[in-house]
């Protein structure tokens, strides 16, 4: 097991309010596996990633509870100095926006070399580092002659390749990709995704793919976690989430919201309402105000996790009378044209 997160809760605290960004999230990743974290803006996906990286803003963020175990180390217990050895070397991150993630006054070669120089445990010489930078550039599909170029000389897709090169140069064991293709066009997105997959297969890297695009998830991931208002509402294999019979109502709503290329439904089935305010989460299940199948208990008590063969759902529908819930869900799924 590469990474194991148990009951992680993170909040941002200011004098005025407390934002409950991540609430009791648990998951784990095996070597070479890809986990997709899916959710809407403000669901807590990026906060989860930043807490693994130890990059939460110091002043406001507070990890209220939980454990992040990475290769038998508790990351939350490490000092900043120890964390620096891991960050960028064993765990690295691809940031969302390639336009702002790079330093505009350093050449891309210098920026890629930076990670190597900081984590130079094997005592590479200057020449070896240069060679490694060139090798990495070629790996991500940029001619090595361009290492002396500045970020502004690259297009969006090429810049994202540079960001990926920086993340990969130290051969990390865990790669966190935070919406790596959201800012890119579809044809470039396809190139970048297939590159990430190829590299993963080559080096056995574990990947956390953070995205809101279910298409991207279907193409790259082995396991999927659906996050809503800081909670993991459903977690399972790709097959469980896309083809399984049991679902959290939010997952059903998410699938109903995307236009399907294969079918000709004239109307989408959006989820009514908005995400709850994270400073003021509803009592009970946080999805209850928008849920079509909300029951009385949903507004009072937080649902427990229901598990079936590793497929986890956090919903009261599965408390008791499981079979009934399943058959109803099937029916609803049929109506939604899924």
């Amino acid at each position, binding site marked *: 097991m590469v990474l194991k997160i148990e009951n992680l809760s993170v909040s941002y605290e200011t004098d005025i309010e407390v934002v409950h960004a991540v609430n009791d999230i648990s998951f784990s990743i095996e070597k070479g596996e890809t986990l997709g974290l899916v959710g*809407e*803006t403000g669901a807590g996906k990026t906060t989860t990633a930043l807490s693994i990286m130890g990059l939460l803003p110091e002043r406001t963020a507070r990890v209220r509870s939980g454990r992040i175990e990475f290769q038998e180390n508790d990351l939350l217990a490490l000092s900043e100095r120890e964390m620096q050895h891991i960050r960028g070397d064993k765990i690295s991150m691809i940031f969302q926006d390639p336009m702002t993630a790079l330093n505009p006054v350093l050449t891309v070669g210098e920026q890629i070399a930076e990670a190597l120089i900081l984590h130079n445990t094997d005592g590479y010489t200057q020449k070896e580092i240069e060679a490694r930078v060139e090798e990495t550039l070629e790996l991500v599909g940029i001619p090595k002659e361009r290492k002396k170029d500045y970020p502004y000389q690259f*297009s*969006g*897709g*090429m810049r994202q390749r540079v960001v990926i090169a920086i993340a990969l140069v130290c051969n990390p064991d865990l790669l966190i990709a935070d919406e790596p293709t959201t800012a890119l*066009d*579809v*044809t*470039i*997105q*396809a*190139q970048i*995704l*297939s590159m990430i*997959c190829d590299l993963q297969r080559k080096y056995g890297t574990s990947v956390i793919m953070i995205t*809101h*695009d*279910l*298409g*991207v*998830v*279907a*193409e*790259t991931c082995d396991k999927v976690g659906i996050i809503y208002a800081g909670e993991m509402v459903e977690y399972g294999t*790709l*097959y469980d989430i*896309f*083809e399984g019979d049991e679902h959290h109502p939010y997952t059903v*709503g*998410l*699938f*109903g*919201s*995307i*236009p*399907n*290329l*294969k079918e*000709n439904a*004239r*109307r*989408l*089935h*959006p*989820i*009514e309402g*908005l995400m709850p305010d994270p400073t003021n989460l509803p009592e009970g299940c946080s999805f209850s105000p928008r849920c079509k199948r909300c029951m009385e208990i949903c507004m009072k008590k937080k649902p427990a996790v229901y598990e079936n063969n590793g497929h986890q759902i956090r919903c009261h529908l599965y408390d008791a009378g499981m079979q009934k819930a399943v058959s109803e869900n099937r029916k609803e799924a049929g109506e939604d044209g899924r």
Partner: protein
Amino acid sequence: MEDKMLEIRHLKKYFQTPAGKLHAVDDVSFQIEQGKTLGVVGESGCGKSTLGRTILCLNEPTEGKILFHGKDLVTAGKKERKRLRPKMQMIFQDPYSSLNGRMTVRQLIAEPLIVNKVCKNKKELEQRVSEAMETVGLAERLSMAYPHELDGGRRQRIGIARALVLEPEFIVCDEPVSALDVSIQAQILNLLMDLQEERKLTYLFITHDLSVVKHISDEIMVMYLGKCVERAPADEIFENPLHPYTKALLAAIPIPSVESCHKRRELLQGEVTSPVNPKPGCRFAARCPFAKESCRSGEILLREVSAGHFVACNQI
């Protein structure tokens, strides 16, 4: 064709840049019937937003004709334009930057009415604004709110209300949902489709998201570097794409189903070339896997290959 609401003939828009002439929109022609939607797709920088802005004369076109109900907007005088323009509106891409942060929701929606001097008195104005808010699903209690207090979906509803309040016939939707989350995106798409049915609106729907465009459009136009490379009815273009670029674009969409898991695909190599002083011949030739010598010279014209299906490729 009957009810030809909007007809564009050989529209061109060039920008002068230090490096040369940037061909943002290059010889595009099409027409839209009343109550229909034409979807325009393409990658960033292919000229789709410029096309939308040029049709509304927000950019003065370099050449070509824009016929709205048979009246040419390009040659029309100031008065004539002022009369026609309220009938043509635009919904902008980014609901975060397209609204004035110092105006309340009510002021924002009233602005087009005041500018065009539509209402005779204050009461009528208030009435029209309230109606528009109700149509797009904005609660009355939000009328005194400022845009920064609202989320993206609600802000986009303000943008739609601003476009609708003048009761236009034709709306250019410039990526109206790309800044929104999927569940909100679906709400806005449904709203736009409901409004179209109710008011017989005509849309020019600009987007880079092919699944959205299929959902909302009757006809789809694919653009590449300022040129229209293929135009066909929506279903036809997805079932029978002919231009290599359209094929590549369709193949690149990630499909949310288990079958696409770790699937290998034919990928388009390279990136969009520069639209500044483009070389003669097919603009896609540099990335096209089937490009031949003949593709790199001469003008490639849009031909009708089957009823309503136009394609600009030498090899079809």
